[in-house]
């Protein structure tokens, strides 16, 4: 059966649209949550009303963001069932468990404590209220944990066994799934890097108040907390990002090669600091990879293997196969051959089972198990299909890293000037902070583009490519729902922005007598 390429592209575009839209709200929830909880903790500790007032203002913006963002992730679940039914069936048992836990525990935890956070200021003790605020933040973070565990499994499938009788990958080790190094690292990197978005938001909006010469004490206090949280968040993200790069090198070497535009690998490979890719460059040609590049010597080898002299495979090496540092990796053509054997064995197993031929079924199952590791490669027509969109991954990675570096410097500078009581008079720097808010979102989205586009062409690494995961439906229906979502999500986004801007303009003074 041939799959319509436009069906795959539209299904992917729709998923990307809804996932990226969902990700506008999540990092602000995670980042702003920590900042407002710290502010309330200061109120609890010092008893100063200014911290209560400050925390309440940011809580209101947290509430607006939470309300508009809530349930936008459910759209993704709809798409799994409609557009990606082969995938949904194939992974149902593994995806189901973490998502169910997310729904039951984390959602209800958030729903309960968020009510106390907003309605309980005069109804519960200071300590109970503070605990509720932290538990709201904790609940949101735990929500992210389960989603990220499911996502990490797609990057590095562990803790399961394929059952050809049910056509499903069945979980046989819950803890391998939950404690997968990819999952844990992805969780810490994603959650902590979200502090950058929350901090940039608070610093930017506070700067707006300073530009408008309003609420000076509130703004400067907010800047103080946000720059500290942002700086710590970025420093921890650098640490977890380094570990993430190491994990990618071990588990998804093609993604790493795409991130670096590395076509021909080798020993002691440098990391590209900045570079412009040759747009004509393709796998296994002799063209130059870069029109311009600046490399940091040996750093990629160290990042990948913790050894400055180690071997890092490039795109061509992965396609053609290689032997280095006591490791032999077979070519993609050989993997495709094994994948086709696995698919044929699955077909033979099914026929034998229906014919009640137990011997033939056992033989086919043995062949399937022996080649299952390469199952997904059997769907490719040429080895080059395993290469993701190199320019998109390469540039997105640099956008993420460079902007994160920019914010680190910005937060440190703003903190220093604020500490010396000079920031309040630096209108130009306040404008820089305000105009930098969109850059924080770009940083966060770029990180996801690296993770998800870099995983292509796989839905599940090595096991199921997108071409096999997609449903047998018409591209036209996916195109229609794409534009419905585009319209709906744009309308929701405009609604959020207008409510958010209105609340910001009202300022913290509006909170003084509010119960919300």
């Amino acid at each position, binding site marked *: 059966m041939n*799959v319509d390429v436009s069906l795959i592209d539209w299904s992917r575009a729709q998923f990307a649209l809804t996932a990226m839209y969902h990700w506008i709200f999540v990092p602000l929830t995670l980042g702003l949550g920590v900042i407002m909880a710290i502010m309330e903790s200061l109120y609890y500790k010092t008893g100063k009303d200014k911290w209560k007032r400050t925390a309440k203002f940011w809580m209101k913006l947290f509430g607006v963001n939470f309300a508009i963002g809530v349930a936008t992730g459910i759209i993704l679940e709809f798409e799994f069932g*409609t557009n990606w039914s082969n995938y949904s069936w*194939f992974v149902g048992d593994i995806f189901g468990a973490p998502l169910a836990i997310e729904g039951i525990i984390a959602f209800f935890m958030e729903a309960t404590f968020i009510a106390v956070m907003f*309605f309980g200021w005069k109804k519960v003790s200071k300590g109970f209220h503070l605990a509720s605020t932290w538990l709201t933040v904790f609940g949101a973070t735990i929500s992210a944990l389960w989603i990220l565990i499911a996502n990490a499994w797609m990057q590095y499938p562990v803790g399961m066994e394929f059952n050809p009788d049910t056509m499903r990958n069945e979980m046989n080790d819950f803890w391998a799934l939950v404690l997968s190094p990819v999952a844990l690292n992805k969780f810490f990197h994603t959650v902590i890097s979200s502090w950058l978005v929350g901090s940039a938001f608070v610093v930017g909006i506070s700067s707006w108040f300073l530009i408008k010469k309003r609420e000076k004490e509130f703004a400067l206090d907010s800047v103080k907390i946000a720059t500290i949280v942002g700086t710590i968040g970025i420093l921890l993200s650098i640490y977890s990002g380094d570990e993430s790069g190491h994990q990618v090198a071990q588990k998804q070497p093609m993604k790493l090669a795409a991130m670096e535009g590395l076509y021909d690998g080798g020993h002691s490979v440098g990391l590209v600091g900045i570079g412009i890719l040759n747009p004509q460059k393709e796998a296994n040609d002799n063209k130059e990879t870069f029109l311009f590049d600046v490399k940091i010597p040996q750093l990629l080898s160290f990042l990948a293997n913790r050894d400055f002299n180690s071997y890092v495979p490039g795109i061509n090496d992965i396609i053609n196969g290689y032997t280095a540092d006591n490791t032999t990796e077979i070519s993609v053509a050989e993997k495709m051959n094994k994948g086709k054997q696995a698919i044929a064995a699955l077909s033979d197993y*099914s026929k034998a089972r229906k014919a009640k031929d137990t011997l033939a079924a056992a033989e086919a199952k043995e062949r399937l198990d022996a080649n299952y590791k390469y199952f997904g490669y059997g769907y490719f027509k040429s080895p080059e299909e395993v290469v993701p969109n190199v320019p998109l991954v390469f540039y997105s990675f640099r956008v993420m890293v460079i902007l994160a570096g920019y914010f680190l410097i910005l937060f440190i500078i703003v903190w220093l000037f604020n500490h010396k009581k000079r920031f309040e008079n630096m209108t130009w720097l306040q404008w820089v902070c305000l105009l930098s808010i969109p850059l924080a979102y770009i940083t966060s989205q770029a990180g996801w583009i690296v993770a998800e586009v870099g995983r292509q062409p796989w839905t599940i690494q090595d096991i199921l490519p997108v071409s096999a995961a997609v*449903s047998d439906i018409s591209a036209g229906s996916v195109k229609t729902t794409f534009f419905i979502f585009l319209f709906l999500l744009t309308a929701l986004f405009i*609604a959020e922005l207008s409510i958010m801007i209105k609340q910001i303009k009202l300022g913290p003074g509006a909170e003084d007598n509010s*119960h919300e």
Partner: protein
Amino acid sequence: MERIKSLKDFFQMYIDGFRSMTVGKTLWLIILLKLFIMFAILKVFFFPNFLNSKFDTDQQKSNFVEQQLTGK
């Protein structure tokens, strides 16, 4: 200030909180409208579960997916 002493007070907190909402009312309206569009329109008319809409039993779904994956 009346503190929560019982479960009834706890639910009263919700009632009082919802009553005194300002911007929250608009947000709840948006949430409810959003959920209605998602579940009553999009899910029903545009996003039926592909396998559930075609097959009744897990065995039938399994056979179909097997056919899809081995025939591609």
